[in-house]
């Protein structure tokens, strides 16, 4: 019900001739927030870069959960695959150009997405959820075991990316990593805005609403979902690669169930089925986490738990969805 209302609202937003203007405004907002972050927290750019990388993961999760309606608790498998692909390329194959590493990460993530998607689409409902969990644990154990390639539980260290364009090196301050990450995020964001509005994106939304009807119309449900999974994997893999490039180490936690669950929490706090919601959720969650867990990590768990319950009960469209609804209501009254 709530979801359907959200689509109706978003449908209104997306219709109309000024979608290009909206996208440009969205892009401007992302860049503005990134710039403000750079100016306000020049000593905390590592955190901001991590937020950027996780934002890519949450965006990719939104593609399958928000736009296709697949509930998954294993999306970090794709993020971690991208991170390990980029890291292994750098350490074992001397591919240290940051753009090449990002590309390798995207390919690795897409491959993991195809594999995970092919398994997940075998089930529905509870079975699907359990499959997603089993996949992320399987990836985790595989990375843990293949320590010759991944460094096992010590993490994959020794990644030293080349300077971007041969000029801007990745230094201790993390300025290059931050700008690099924001550039990737901005490009991906624009591409995804185009993707979700394309006929393919509409087909995915149709499948979320009623898969039987879509297949009756002659479209291949599983084929479409699998393609979306591969795209989502590429985006998540980019996020993982960005994390590998900026921190210069890949740990097993990038493939963990906890990361997957947190990504889902971020998405829902921000609002599913809208790319802005994914960004808002990531920013809110990560910033809040950094703030509270510095005081006491267990209070953080209690607060995030209570916040989740509150969001589910009182704001099922997430922060962004609820805010736009309120704005619409105010707008219509005038």
């Amino acid at each position: 019900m709530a979801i359907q209302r959200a689509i109706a609202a978003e449908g209104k937003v997306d219709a109309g001739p000024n979608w290009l203007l909206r996208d440009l405004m969205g892009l401007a907002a992302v860049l503005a927030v990134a710039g403000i972050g750079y100016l306000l927290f020049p000593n905390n750019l590592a955190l901001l870069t991590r937020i950027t990388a996780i934002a890519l993961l949450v965006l990719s999760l939104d593609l399958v959960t928000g736009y296709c309606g697949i509930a998954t608790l294993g999306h970090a498998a794709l993020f971690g695959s991208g991170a390990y692909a980029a890291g292994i390329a750098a350490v074992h194959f001397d591919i240290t150009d940051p753009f090449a590493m990002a590309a390798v990460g995207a390919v690795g993530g897409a491959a993991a997405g195809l594999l995970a998607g092919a398994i997940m689409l075998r089930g529905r409902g509870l079975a699907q959820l359990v499959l997603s969990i089993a996949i992320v644990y399987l990836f985790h154990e595989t990375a843990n075991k293949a320590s010759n390639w991944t460094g096992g539980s010590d993490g994959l260290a020794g990644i030293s990316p080349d300077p971007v364009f041969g000029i801007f090196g990745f230094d201790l301050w993390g300025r290059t990593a931050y700008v690099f990450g924001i550039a990737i995020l901005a490009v991906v964001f624009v591409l995804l805005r185009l993707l979700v509005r394309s006929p393919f994106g509409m087909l995915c939304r149709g499948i979320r609403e009623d898969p039987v009807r879509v297949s009756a119309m002659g479209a291949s449900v599983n084929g479409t979902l699998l393609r979306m999974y591969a795209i989502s994997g590429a985006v998540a893999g980019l996020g993982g690669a960005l994390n590998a490039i900026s921190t210069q180490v890949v740990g097993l936690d990038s493939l963990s169930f906890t990361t997957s669950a947190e990504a889902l929490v971020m998405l829902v706090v921000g609002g599913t089925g809208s790319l802005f919601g994914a960004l808002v959720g990531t920013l809110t969650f990560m910033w809040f986490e950094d703030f509270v867990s510095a005081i006491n990590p267990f209070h953080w768990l209690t607060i995030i738990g209570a916040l989740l319950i509150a969001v589910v009960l009182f704001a099922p469209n997430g922060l962004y969805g609820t805010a736009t609804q309120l704005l619409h209501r105010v707008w219509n009254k005038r």
Partner: protein
Amino acid sequence: MQTVFSVGTDALAYGMVLFVISIGLSVTMGLMRVVNLAHGAFAMIGGYIASYATQILGLGYGVAILLAVVGTILIAIPIERFLFRRIYGAPELTQVLMTIGLTFCVIGIANYVFGPTLKTIPLPETLRGPVDLGFRSIAAHKLFAIACGIVVAGALWVLIDKTSFGVKLRASVDNAAMAASLGVRTKIVYAVSSAVAVGLAAFGGIVGAELLPIEPYYALRYMVTFLVVVSVGGAGSIPGALVACLVLGAIDTTGRYLVPEYGEFFFYLAVIAIVCVFPNGILGRRS
């Protein structure tokens, strides 16, 4: 032979503990169609209460079990009434998030109240040490866990197959609307089965405390295991849950004994294989 025997008893004990904890989850999931990730939290609460009762209050093991089961049910009633009832029939994502949120809250509160350390529930004298079976000796608490599993399975079989409540329960699982229109008070069936489910979870948490130690992250660590058991066995099916627990317990324990360096690799590989072949669970009905 020695290895086979010890793997066998360990697997059986582990499987039975899993069964006692997750059978309640299976029944309520079959009944209310709620994906409940907070079930492990109730087992943990039971363990904490029992530990508090034995360590601080100095009560006996049996009394502690009783107190913990009743206490956990009392804690669960308002949670069921005010939180879970709102998500019956909601999309899975909503249910997953609500119950994860609840789990996080319970972990945070448990840590705040009891601290991050591992809590033990001292066993009574009779359950300590090995029991001689004539040809082999086996740890008494494992034997106790196996016996508890058998008793619970038997009691549930009698309850569900032989009593009028069981008839109503099965009717509600099959078709709640039809059962209600035939005069079954489904609300009461729901309430009683939720209480039984939570009570069994608490009981399993105490009995299994030696195998699954009680600490704040218990609820998160075994959340997945319980959910997997239900999904593999088929929600709402008691024999299915029993088979799933024994099979998964055997795979997990054998894996740990023979190839410990692979951790839970084989466990999750088996889960993927089983769920792919039986999307509705081994003995689940077609939905």
